[in-house]
């Protein structure tokens, strides 16, 4: 079976399944990542994000389904064009910083001499030039993470895969990483990352895949995810009661002078007309588009959302 080639996809996967020891970790995942996009895989720990990424990278093979990465059905054939930063980060402690980056480059086919030169450039560029000849074991954890990140990018990959890249970073370095991801995408690199922090995905991603229990209930544009929910209306009135209340939707909840409800299918104009004609005395009215978090709750369910929040708060504490 061959995956269709109608779109310009960096990654295209259909029906990926992976079973471990009698349980299904990933159950029929479909993902299509456009070239040059920033793509987020969103889900709580244990949802199947890492297993999905490993299958996409060819680290493990799926039990069923097809994948095509940079136009190749065997991801290992294009390993030189991919950069990968796993969640569990690590380098050889005795290696010098420059050598560590050059080694990671050599793994991806860059000659050692070129790798060393690029490593020095990257270290200087990111303010780590002073640590070029230090051993990895002499660096702080944050610096070592930055070095590995540079090692992920040293061979100028077309596709970069980050597994929980913000995990373990403080707020300052999270901001730096977000900036770097945007810069990569602007340069034409496709970036795919997994996260359980919705805010990162919301700020960065063009598209997301929501994954829970090994399945992907949604994959597509962030806007499309949000559009799955009706906008929320927040209304403040002077009058507390009157005939105008009949115009409010059935799900309207009142809290003093405020009313909260879902924007009716008919739109805001008929509602406004009824409120004005009914002399409700509109003090304020705002229509809020649902956030990705609301979309996640609606798509993946309350339990998955709760798990996601717990993971995120745990990560904040760790950072």
């Amino acid at each position, binding site marked *: 079976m061959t995956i269709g080639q109608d779109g310009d996809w960096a990654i295209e996967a259909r029906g990926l399944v992976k079973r*471990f020891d009698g349980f299904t970790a990933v159950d029929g995942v479909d993902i299509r990542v456009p070239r040059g996009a920033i793509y987020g895989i969103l889900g709580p720990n244990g949802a199947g994000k890492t*297993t999905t990424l490993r299958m996409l990278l*060819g680290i493990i093979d799926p039990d069923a389904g097809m994948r095509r990465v940079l136009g190749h059905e065997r991801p290992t054939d294009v390993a030189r064009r991919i950069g990968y930063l796993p969640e569990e980060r690590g380098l050889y*402690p005795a290696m010098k910083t420059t050598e560590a980056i050059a*080694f990671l480059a050599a793994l991806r086919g860059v000659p050692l001499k070129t790798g060393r030169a690029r490593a020095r450039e990257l270290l200087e560029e990111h303010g780590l030039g002073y640590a070029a000849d230090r051993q990895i074991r002499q660096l702080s954890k944050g610096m070592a993470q930055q070095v*590995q990140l540079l090692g992920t990018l040293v061979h100028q990959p077309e596709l970069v895969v980050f597994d929980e890249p913000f995990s373990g970073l403080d707020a300052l370095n999270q901001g730096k990483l977000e900036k770097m991801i945007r810069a990569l995408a602007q340069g034409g690199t496709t970036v795919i990352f997994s996260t359980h922090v919705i805010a990162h995905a919301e700020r960065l991603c063009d598209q997301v895949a929501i994954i829970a229990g090994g399945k992907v209930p949604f994959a597509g544009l962030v806007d499309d995810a949000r559009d799955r929910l009706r906008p929320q209306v927040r209304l403040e009135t002077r009058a507390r009661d009157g005939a105008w209340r009949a115009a409010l939707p059935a799900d309207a909840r009142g809290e003093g002078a405020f009313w909260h409800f879902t924007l009716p299918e008919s739109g805001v104009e008929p509602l406004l007309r009824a409120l004005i004609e009914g002399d409700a005395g509109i003090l304020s009215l705002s229509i809020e588009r649902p956030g990705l978090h609301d979309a996640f709750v609606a798509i993946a369910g309350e339990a998955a959302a709760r798990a996601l929040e717990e993971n995120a708060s745990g990560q904040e504490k760790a950072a």
Partner: protein
Amino acid sequence: MIPEKLRAAWVIARRDFVAVIFSKSFVFFLLGPLFPLIVGGMAGAIGAKVQRDLDNPQIGIALPADEAARMMAAHRALADAMPGDVPDFVVLDAPWGGRTYDARAALAGSHRAGTAEHDRPVGQLAAVVSGSLAHPVLTATPERARMWQGMIALFAAHAQSVAPAALPPVAVDEVASSAASVQTGQVSTAQAGQVALFLLTMLLAGMVLSNLVEEKANKIIEVLAASIPMDALFLGKLFAMLGVSLVGMAVWGAAWGGLMVMGMKSLPLLAAPAVGWPVFILLGFLYFAMAYLLLGSLFLSIGGMATTVREVQTLSMPVTMLQLMVFFFASYALARPGSWVDWAARVFPLSSPFAMLARAARDPVIWPHLLALGWQALCVMLIVRTGAQLFRRTVMKSGPARGRKVRKGGLLGLLKPDRTAQDRFSQGEA
């Protein structure tokens, strides 16, 4: 253009080689062969001394006085001309007037020599000759009785002659070798080759076993797995250790050569092998490489399933036993050339390098070695590929270490896949 797998293997091999060569543990690796030599030398010296002290048997002579004197004279005349060690003779008693000597009691240690003249401790007494020169009775344990029966008869015959003939001088015409000495010497060379091969592979086994633990502990394994084929990782690691061992061999060889130059000529010289020394050394190198790659790839695969140094230590004992069994099998086959055991040792991949090196010492035909090397190389590739697949299947299948569970089922558990907290979460147990 270099195939991708070889290029990737080279990257890994270069990193590992440099890391090992410039590590402190490499100094201990170089000193490694000294330990068995020193310990073996000391144990051998002590053992020889103990043997000399304890095993200095004497044969008691309990014959009438004149016959005992003639027996002692015969001992003085013949002992030096006899092959091997001839025990000392000790006069115990001179029975007279029909009295018989209780040889059994003397050997049991409850009896001391009867005459004041020859009164001495009999703790080393291993046999007693009583009766008469015409009808000597040798009392000893069955083994020693069989060993000394002929010698006592010869001495008694010599002692009975009134004028014993002097031993004629034998002119000696020495030749460099005989068919028998060549065969014996080549067997010794074969044994020495096997022992050297065994010791070298043994030195490397522990290092290979723990080779992937570093990558796991440093969490770099996933980056490696994403970047290069897993069998390239295995091959790279194997060749790095092969390179390390070659550096070690060069250092040891230089040290040995230095000792020879400095005049330690007493080092044992081996008989020339059937294929000649240059070919034998070349084959020795190739078979060492194959023995190492075969055992190394197997140990790397086994060690790859271990996640901690402790698990590696647990594995090292059965692995050493496996090496010993392979060595014993090949040694056993050496004594049975042409038998099915010999053929089995040549064909079984792990013992094949040992058996074939022994063959090179005893048989000048070259082509079977080319066949054997090809077969061994094929087996290396198969083991590496299987090991890499097993490694991928068992290691790269779970989430981060925070959810890693402790294996159940001891060593058998190593063969079972992990199930992590992440996995349990996926199953709704978390």
